[in-house]
């Protein structure tokens, strides 16, 4: 569960100070599927970095599963990321010359999970992310964009995190493969009750979530249930490999 109260973030660049977040408060409950939407420069990426424990807010409090993570050290934040958070990035960020398996098990190396259990967890995560078994031992640079993003989703899932942050997950994909990825998130939310926070600048993508938080100039301008929820339409047979 995420509880934010009055979060601000100010960047100092010499003498000039830039207020990127100007006081943001909201709560995301377990099992929610939320989209944070806003144009570029609105502060949504900065907000995601703070929510994802990659950065600390200048002021305000941020409780993740009841623990205040707004004033932790770098190493404590690393622990929070390791145990509670999964990331999916726009540019996948896979180790290109490593196999799918190695990419997915990577987070488990840092949490020191025994080797056999690692494989088991990775297989579960890959199944949940919807990557067919034939690809599990491929090198990740032999995969298509959509497959790569599903490997990245599996990697985010493998530690069984409280929340998955997806930063423009469809940004590098064509609309059809984008649909597949959005469908994957939808299934993870519906069938496995994962909390998903989708960060996007596209209203169309945001409308796949149950709730949309609209950010502009560092402030929430709208936070409401998505009445016109879209369901991803699939064209499995046309997927390019």
């Amino acid at each position: 569960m995420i509880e934010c109260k009055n979060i601000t973030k100010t960047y100092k660049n010499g003498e000039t100070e830039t207020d990127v977040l100007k006081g943001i408060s909201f709560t995301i409950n377990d099992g929610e599927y939320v989209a944070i939407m806003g144009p570029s420069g609105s502060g949504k990426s900065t907000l995601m970095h703070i929510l994802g424990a990659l950065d600390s807010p200048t002021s305000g409090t941020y409780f993740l599963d009841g623990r205040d993570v707004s004033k932790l050290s770098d190493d404590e934040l690393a622990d929070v990321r390791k145990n509670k958070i999964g990331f999916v990035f726009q540019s996948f960020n896979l180790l290109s010359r490593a196999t799918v398996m190695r990419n997915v098990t990577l987070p488990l190396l840092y949490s020191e999970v025994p080797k056999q259990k690692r494989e088991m967890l990775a297989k579960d995560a890959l199944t949940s992310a919807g990557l067919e078994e034939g690809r599990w031992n491929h090198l990740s640079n032999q995969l298509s964009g959509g497959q790569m993003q599903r490997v990245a989703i599996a990697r985010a899932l493998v530690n069984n995190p409280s929340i998955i942050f997806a930063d423009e997950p469809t940004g590098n994909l064509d609309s059809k493969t984008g649909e597949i990825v959005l469908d994957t998130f939808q299934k993870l939310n519906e069938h496995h009750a994962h909390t998903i926070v989708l960060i996007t600048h596209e209203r169309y993508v945001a409308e796949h979530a149950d709730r949309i938080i609209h950010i502009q100039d560092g402030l929430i301008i709208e936070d409401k249930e998505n009445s016109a929820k879209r369901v991803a339409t699939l064209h499995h047979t046309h997927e390019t490999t």
Partner: protein
Amino acid sequence: MKLPDLLSETYSSLTVNKVRTGLTMLGIVIGIGSVIAMVSIGQGAQSSIESKIQSIGSNLLIVTPGAQRGPGVQISEGRGTAQTLTQEDADAIIKEVDLAKAVAPEISRRYQVTAKGTNTNTQVVGTVASYPTVRNVEVDSGTFISDQNVKSLSRVAVIGPTTRDDLFGTDSDPIGQTIRINKVDFKIIGVTKAKGGSGFGSQDDMVFVPLSTAQRYLAGDTYVTSISIAAEDANSMSAIQQQITDILLERHNIKDPTKADFSVINQADIVATASSVTGIFTILLGAIAGISLLVGGIGIMNMMLTTVTERTREIGLRKAIGAKKKDISTQFLAESIMLTFLGGLIGVLFGWFFAWLISTFASITTTVSTTSVMLAFGVSAAIGIIFGYYPARRAAKLNPIEALRYE
């Protein structure tokens, strides 16, 4: 991260760019290899010089005329040429130094030695029957000079194998033949065993004659060139040295030990001096080779810095999925240590092979010691740590957000 995981991660990172890894490692291989080879040459020289010194006798003390240089000492007292030691000095040492196992006075000078139609210029040593005991000389055929020969001024000679080869031809039997030294005929009664070594001062190119005969027919006086004393064991050497000094000072009527007209050289001192010379030689060779090791280390640092830049996004990702600073720096440090460790291993084998080549084809004695191998390993691991530390720290300090955005 657990150690086996760390090693497998390191292995896969290093094998991503095999050519670059190989070339970087080559720097360390050449560095360590040349250190091993160079030091083996130095240590080989050291051990061969030491064994040569040992071959002239064990627990040996040599008294030579002339003073060790000190304040107010004149050039005329030059060591080895001054004639201050006499037969009587040697007799006194034999009588009074009870710790001495054997004492052999000798008179030696180079002469032209002729046999039927052949001649050679060699060292002629007039000495006594105890000489073989003192100086580790063994007789190959015939006999050495006996006390009887010395007493009766016999004109007999024992020759070294090189002298025999020069005068009578290789592996001939010269016993019973006659050689002429300084217009005096000597009958050959024995040949000594080859000790090895060549050139000036070889123990194999010598002619031994009775001391008394040499004094009477060759030198014409009763002075001796040196007195060699074999001690019972290494522990009694300094006591004997002191005793001899006291006896000779008294006999020569010298009150001030710094003005002594003789010097007593301890074999251990000779070994120590020679070792210090070859030690410097070894250090010099090792230092020259060490420069290439340093260059190899800089190569490692260069590669690691390039790698850190290239893998910025990977570092960002690793941090995003929970890697701490320590995890990142350990990983990069492990990569550079694995590079230098493998390079060191190959370098040791390479250096060993090179040392073998040198001793096989250039006839230079080489010794690869465990110490130099351990040292080379230690140094290469240390290079991995030293030159890998800065790149690893740079990787660990990267901000995950910026690293993930890095293009």
